[in-house]
């Protein structure tokens, strides 16, 4: 029998259309039915490991993970019930007994990443379970400049290791050990620098609890920074990124959420981390003019503009327009390139305008 590809399912008594191959989570999310989850990332194969998204599926004795359970025609699903409420209450309480959240001993150090676990825990009346003190190993000797791992905050959802495998495909990190000792490790617990890691930082972005954070970013609460959506200035892919600024300084770069822009939540090492140049002390901050001593000296804008335009006009007067060359830049904006070619053509009368344009 050939099954139709489109059908309806029932979630909490409401009927929704769905397609074969979709998961309960996907149908619910599309229709605004909230199913909480920690280990789900739309870029990754479902792991069903955090167990947060368990729902009731009619005909199934056990609760099933919404992130992985495929819908079928006329399937009836409950995302809220006493059983699910108890499940969430006990599960989140167990997470709290295994992971640092802000429920005990005052606020933990703010990581600057949204801690989704903490948000979930705030939705329940937790059971005061004693700490389990799981012996998860850290990587104390990891001297990589960007990525920091705090096992106290890690919930082993494996989003980082799955991202490293399935999306970035460099396989630098892995789940290691087992049971309560399970941790995120590198081969031989070496520094990420000495592994196949390409420092893309995607693991930080996908981490739902702030167990992975950016080392060099100041630890600021998310609300303390302003974000500006822009386009990356390195290669020609055109990744969208959010610049986080604080007191007129760029303090962190993150990717828009998966699915929003063409980079689908991803950035590379250059885009995410190589921004120190922006505020570097070597930046040119004053116009410079070469004086009679043959050296470049600071000058005012007025003088620099005047000397420069006189210089170019002198050459034009002496040798003609086509003795001038204008080199524009693929690093600058379209508007600036437009102005540069207009300058060359309209102001100086030559088509000698180009840029490093091999591709």
């Amino acid at each position, binding site marked *: 029998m050939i099954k139709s590809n489109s059908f309806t399912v029932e979630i909490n008594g409401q009927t929704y259309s769905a397609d074969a191959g979709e998961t309960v989570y996907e149908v619910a999310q599309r229709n605004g039915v909230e199913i909480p989850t920690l280990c789900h990332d739309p870029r990754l194969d479902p792991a069903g490991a955090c167990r947060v998204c368990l729902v009731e599926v009619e005909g199934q004795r056990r609760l099933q993970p919404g992130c992985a359970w495929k819908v079928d025609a006329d399937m009836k699903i409950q995302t809220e019930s006493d059983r699910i409420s108890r499940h969430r209450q006990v599960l989140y309480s167990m997470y709290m007994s295994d992971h640092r959240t802000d429920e005990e001993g005052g606020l933990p150090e703010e990581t600057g990443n949204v801690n989704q676990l903490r948000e979930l825990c705030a939705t329940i009346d937790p059971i005061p379970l004693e700490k389990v003190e799981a012996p998860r190993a850290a990587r104390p000797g990891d001297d990589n*400049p960007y990525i920091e791992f705090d096992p106290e905050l890690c919930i082993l959802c494996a989003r980082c290791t799955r991202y490293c495998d399935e999306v*970035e495909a460099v396989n630098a990190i892995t789940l290691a050990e087992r049971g309560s000792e399970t941790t995120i490790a590198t081969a031989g617990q070496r520094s990420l620098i000495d592994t196949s890691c390409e*420092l893309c930082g995607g693991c930080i972005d996908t981490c739902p609890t702030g167990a992975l954070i950016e080392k*060099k970013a100041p630890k600021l609460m998310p609300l303390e920074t302003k974000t500006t959506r*822009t*386009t990356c*200035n*390195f*290669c*020609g*892919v*055109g990744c969208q990124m959010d*610049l986080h600024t604080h007191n007129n300084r*760029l303090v962190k770069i993150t990717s828009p959420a998966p699915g*929003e822009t*063409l980079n689908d939540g*991803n950035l590379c090492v*250059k885009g995410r*981390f190589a921004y*120190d*140049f*922006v505020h*570097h002390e*070597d*930046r*040119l*901050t004053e116009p410079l003019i*070469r004086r009679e001593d043959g050296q470049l000296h600071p000058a005012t*804008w007025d003088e620099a*503009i005047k000397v420069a*335009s006189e210089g170019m006009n002198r*050459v034009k007067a*002496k040798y003609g327009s*086509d*003795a001038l*060359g*204008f*080199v*524009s830049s693929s*690093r600058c904006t*379209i508007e600036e*390139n437009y*102005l540069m*070619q*207009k*300058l*060359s*053509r*309209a*102001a100086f009368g*030559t*088509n*000698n*305008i*180009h*840029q*490093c*344009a*091999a*591709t």
Partner: protein
Amino acid sequence: MFGAGAMTNSIPEIRDTDLMFVIGSNTTEAHPIIAMEMKRARQAGARLIVADPRKIWMAEQADLHLQLRPGTDVWLLSAMAHVIINENLHDQAFIDANTEGFEAVKERVQQYSPDEAEKITGVPAEDIRTAARMYATTRKAGIYYTLGITEHTHGTDNVYCLANLVLMTGHLGVRSAGMNPLRGQNNVQGANDAGATPMYYPGYQPVTDDEVRKKFEAAWNVPLSPDDGLNLNVMMKCLAKGTLKGMYVMGEDIVISEPNVSQVELGLNECEFLICQEIFHNETTRFADVVFPASCFAEKDGVFANSDRRVQRVRKAVDPPGNAKEDWKILIEFAQASGYDMPDYANPGEIFDEMASLTPKVAGISHQRLEERIEGLQWPCTDSEHPGTPTLHVDGPLIGKAQFQAVDYRPSAELPDDDFPLVLSTGRTLYHYNSATQTRRDPGPSIKQRQNFIEINRKNAKMLGIEHGETVRIISRRGAIEAEAWITPRVRFGCIWMPMHFAESRANLLTNDAGDSVTGTGEYKVCAVKIEKIKPTSPVSIASAVDQLAPVLNKPM
């Protein structure tokens, strides 16, 4: 060909493709995020053919790696066309409906049999046949290429060969297929689109076209030159010859990025007036008469156009440092001071509007529209209602019929010989960017790749008595530099590879400035070099090394 040099298809389409033919692109390092789309397609079952002289990461993952000798792309691609045509795998209906010139190509590629191609390219004839069949018989098959194709004296021929393959198989106007040059820089597409090119006004409108010129003369209120200008490669040569006397260089370090830089440096010494507009001092500002301190991407508003013709916003997040200024403001002030009545644009949005009013391809794009469209707008986008164009040529070629181009193989300008027995190719790495003025100011890239290196095959290294990590001198007819030798199976016997990022050890002191006859692009991918040990070694091993190398030299490259 078929319209402008840009990706015919979109980056998000890659994940749905069934076959990727990646040639002359080290995608994982040069375009990591596009590589992620490719990895995703691969995981979903797409097949992968990689043509590259190096065994790059993608090649290791490929169904088929065509490890051709540098500079023999025309042979490889013509032989693939040979197979496709002779095995009747071409799409005659598409060819008849949409193209011209097929017969000439059909005839020409008869000279390029896979068996002959094997001798020239070093790629087994059977692999060439397999690749041709896989490509021709898969509907959603995309070609992805970059500088490995274009940075040759016959770069344009390489591109023609690829276009011929696309046209003869009808892989055009199909989602997840097409011909896709991956752009190396954030706005190289946009710079071209905006007319920063000697032959075109914005939107690829020829400067030699009277109608077009009249339009721009009217808009800009000034008579304009009817002659093609000089491309960058020719400009550099004119500088050395003494016919180019004044330059305004914005945001490019021509001394590090142009080939045969010692000639460029000589030329710059002769230049009577040089303006540099930069964010850092670089090799070129050493020659400048005036330096304008400019702004980086985080300090200004505007738009970039990426590889898939996508116009996206750049937004100001922080102020430029000290007295540095946004580049567009500097250009306005300079133009006005120079005697041209450049308008006082209040913001880059107004500049874009002027360009859009003169450029049909982007007429429908504006800063206001981009506020709504967080995924950007892809040109052609001809009016304010137009949704943009993710896939080009869905309804056939943009103008008239697409042209096949019959191409003959021409060897690279400089081949190895007894004096310079090795072929040097240059390129990018993941961790650095161009002249690395930005990336070397960050700890990660600096730790991963602190200094310049060459990749060399174990056999060549052994013949030269070189150990892994040893500093060696690399010498071409144009210059010499020092770098660490990394012994790796990634490169072919007889070939070495070097990144272009290191100012103190500039690869472009070695490279050949022979340019492509159409684009002027320098031959960064092939030049002849030799390697000398700096650390002393026994004379015996050098002598025997020369002996052992001799047979390779006789092979066609």
